């Protein structure tokens, strides 16, 4: 009797009216959805749309402010991930927490190892049950291999196996394929299909529209914390997903851009330039032009930034700056040639957090003024005071450790350092990540001011609005290659997203009217 029931009529997990805020920031607004038995549900949305928060609520990591959850028709309010697991909801996180020095088996059963009489771990029983589990999942990796030996795909599989060892009814996968090549991602999708066949309900977060179209029985889309699409397979297209993800208005924080760069000379031109991490790339940026680089996470854009900065130099092809062949063989050389690189991870790659604002800001300003290796103290004082005022840096004093400033002010310190001398080429990697809206618009104004002076800007960003608002031209990257070049007239979030999710030679899909 029950087997004949329609999937939708017996939801395993049901969420209704879920809301959650962090301080003033409303991350989820009145979200309702359900997962049926043997169903794969795709959760889609831009960065910051609230996906991870929603999954954390489901798996007991966070409580919701409003709304309720039910599991198999019964009230479900897990107070901790442990309780969620006991109720049959397990999560495999995006960043795998595999311990490199432990074996696959030890990782999977971490904290739940079979114990002997003295509380010692029974190694044989552990590895035997792990082998059984992996066999069951059709996953061929030896339980005895060390975490540090595993590939990215295998790490993800072990993470999933760990969640599956709890025999959950609902398995949550947070971007299981984000760090994988498309080949490796297929094996993860296959695994999801097998789990589904065994009766597990799966929620997975993904940016890869292709695999969503292939694998999902149902898709829901979050945008700015609200549900914008909830449809069963066959009822939505790729374009519907994109529209639901990004359909918002451009705000007016972007400065006007000049209309044409036809007559300006290129500031930098790459011809088949590449290295071990970056297949040959060709592009050129004119003086005063902003070239946007769009792509999903990990499609080679950061390797490009590292090569331009001289940190991981190009090994092949040619680089021309101002029409003259040259090379960016080291960071010092790139700086000398007028290439300024603002890193995306300012805390790790940009700042000495324990040192004062002054010390962090003045490096390049004083470097050129130094005589006999002495610090030009007067120059440093003048520069740091002027830069603080120019960039409106809010700090108790210039002697305050830079780590105590807000993200936006830290970013301004990095800008102030690199802009001590006007560069020829400015490489920006996620320049507004983690900064407040006010600093954002200041950074946009600054970019506009610099391009007015003829600085060529390469803007790498995962924020589509920012790319569209600031760029004069956009290239999309997919799997470490440029997949499309888009002129300003053709900018739209949908078009960029489409180009950023397929190879250059893949045929464009028919756009639904």
């Amino acid at each position, binding site marked *: 009797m029950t087997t004949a029931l329609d999937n939708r009529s017996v939801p395993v997990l049901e969420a209704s009216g879920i809301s959650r805020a962090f301080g003033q920031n409303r991350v989820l607004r009145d979200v309702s959805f359900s997962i049926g038995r043997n169903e794969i549900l795709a959760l889609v949305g831009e960065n910051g749309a609230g996906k991870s928060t929603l999954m954390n609520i489901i798996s007991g990591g966070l409580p919701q402010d409003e709304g309720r959850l039910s599991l198999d028709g019964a009230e479900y309010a897990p107070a901790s991930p442990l309780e969620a697991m006991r109720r049959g909801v397990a999560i495999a996180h995006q960043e795998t927490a595999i311990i490199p020095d432990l074996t696959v088996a030890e990782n999977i059963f971490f904290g739940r190892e079979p114990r002997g009489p003295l509380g010692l771990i029974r190694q044989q029983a552990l590895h035997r049950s792990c082998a059984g589990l992996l066999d069951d999942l059709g996953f061929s990796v030896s339980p005895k291999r060390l975490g540090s030996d595993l590939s990215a795909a295998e790490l993800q599989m072990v993470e999933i196996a760990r969640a599956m060892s709890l025999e959950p009814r609902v398995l949550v996968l947070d971007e299981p394929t984000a760090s994988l090549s498309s080949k490796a991602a297929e094996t993860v999708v296959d695994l999801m299909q097998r789990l589904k066949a065994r009766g597990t309900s799966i929620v997975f977060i993904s940016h890869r529209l292709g695999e969503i179209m292939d694998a999902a029985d149902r898709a829901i889309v979050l945008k700015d914390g609200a549900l914008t699409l909830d449809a069963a397979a066959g009822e939505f297209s790729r374009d519907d997903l994109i529209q639901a993800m990004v359909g918002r208005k451009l705000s007016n924080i972007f400065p006007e851009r000049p209309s044409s760069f036809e007559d300006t000379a290129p500031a930098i031109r790459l011809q088949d330039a590449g290295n071990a991490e970056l297949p040959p790339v060709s592009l050129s940026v004119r003086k005063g032009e902003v070239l946007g680089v769009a792509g999903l996470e990990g499609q080679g854009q950061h390797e490009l930034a590292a090569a331009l*900065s*001289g*940190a991981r130099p190009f090994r092949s092809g040619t680089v021309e700056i101002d029409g003259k062949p040259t090379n960016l063989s*080291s*960071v*010092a050389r*790139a*700086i000398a040639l007028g290439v300024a*690189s603002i*890193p995306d991870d300012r805390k*790790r*790659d*940009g*700042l*000495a*957090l*324990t*040192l004062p604002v002054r*010390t962090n800001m003045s*490096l*390049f300003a*004083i*470097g050129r003024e*130094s005589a006999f*290796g*002495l*610090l030009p*103290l*007067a120059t440093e*004082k003048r520069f740091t005071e002027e830069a603080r005022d120019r960039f409106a840096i809010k700090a108790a004093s210039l002697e305050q*450790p830079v780590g105590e400033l807000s993200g936006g002010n830290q970013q301004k310190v990095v800008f102030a*350092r690199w802009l001590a001398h006007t560069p020829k080429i400015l490489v920006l990697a996620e320049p507004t990540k983690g900064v407040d809206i006010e600093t954002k618009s200041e950074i946009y104004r600054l970019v506009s001011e610099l391009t007015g002076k003829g600085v060529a800007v390469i803007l790498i960003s995962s924020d589509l609005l920012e790319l569209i608002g600031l760029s004069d031209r956009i290239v999309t990257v997919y799997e470490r290659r440029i997949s499309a070049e888009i002129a300003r007239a053709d900018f739209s979030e949908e078009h960029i997203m489409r180009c950023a999710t397929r190879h250059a030679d893949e045929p464009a899909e028919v756009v639904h009217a």
Partner: protein
Amino acid sequence: MQTSVQSAVLVLEKLRPSPATLRAFGLLVVLLCVLFVASGQVSGHQILDNMRQAAPLGIITLGQALILMMGRLDLSVGATAGLANVVLAMTFAGNMDNMAYALSVTLGCGALVGVANGLLVVALRIPAFLATLATSLVLTGTTLVVTGGSPRGSIPAEFRVITEGWFLGVLPYSVILWLAAIAGLTTLVHFTMPGRRMLLAGANARAARLNGIAAGRMIVISFVLSSLAATIGGILLSAITGMASIGIADAYTVDSIAAAVIGGAVFGGGVFLAAGVSIGALILFFVQSLLYVVSLPPATRFIVQGGIIVLALALANIRRKSD
């Protein structure tokens, strides 16, 4: 003209003692008062004479403070000073004619230890405190094996003038050397570009590299400077004792860290207070004098030393909280 006046003002501003240095100085004054009450006599000459004897620790502490500024620890300074003692006695062999040879070999050995420490940290990416601990063990073992436990040679009496002699009868030579080290390292760290690059490399080597600084080289140089300071400390110590003995300088490792911390050095790095850490070294030295005067067993020194470290850090933290 105006800029030179402006620069002079800025230099003076930089040389103004930091709160941590003043706190250490206050602690020293309190200690001297207690010493005066206990012994009934504290004269300027007596203080200078104590400084004379504290000079080895003072100079070694300066090196340790430099490494602490880099956010690291040098656990090999004691063994390096001990190595200097043994090598100096061997190469001197009691004959003043060997001075140039003896000093250059000893300083050369010290520099090599620093290069080894630096390469272990930079090239092999071993955390500094483990790398220097390993170096320290290797040095101690090597000294024992090579000397067979009884080091040869001696320091000629004429050489001992550097720790026994007084310049014009006013200032001990070893104190002059100590002050020169303070001036030299202060200039390097606070007034030169290489010092600034060193500071940035120590605080965030990765960011420093991405800003065009040869961060690895800067870290190696800092370890060489620390080992050279330890070697000079070892040479002064040799001049005081006049002979070589195994393990004579082992306590300097812990003492130099204690002195640096009392003088305002912080484990997170980024701070270099040459005057403060020198006062820290003096405090440790006067504590020993005080215990001698009030005839407590020498081992109580450790208890008092621990107490003073806690006191110095508590004072620093209370102040920070009130900010």
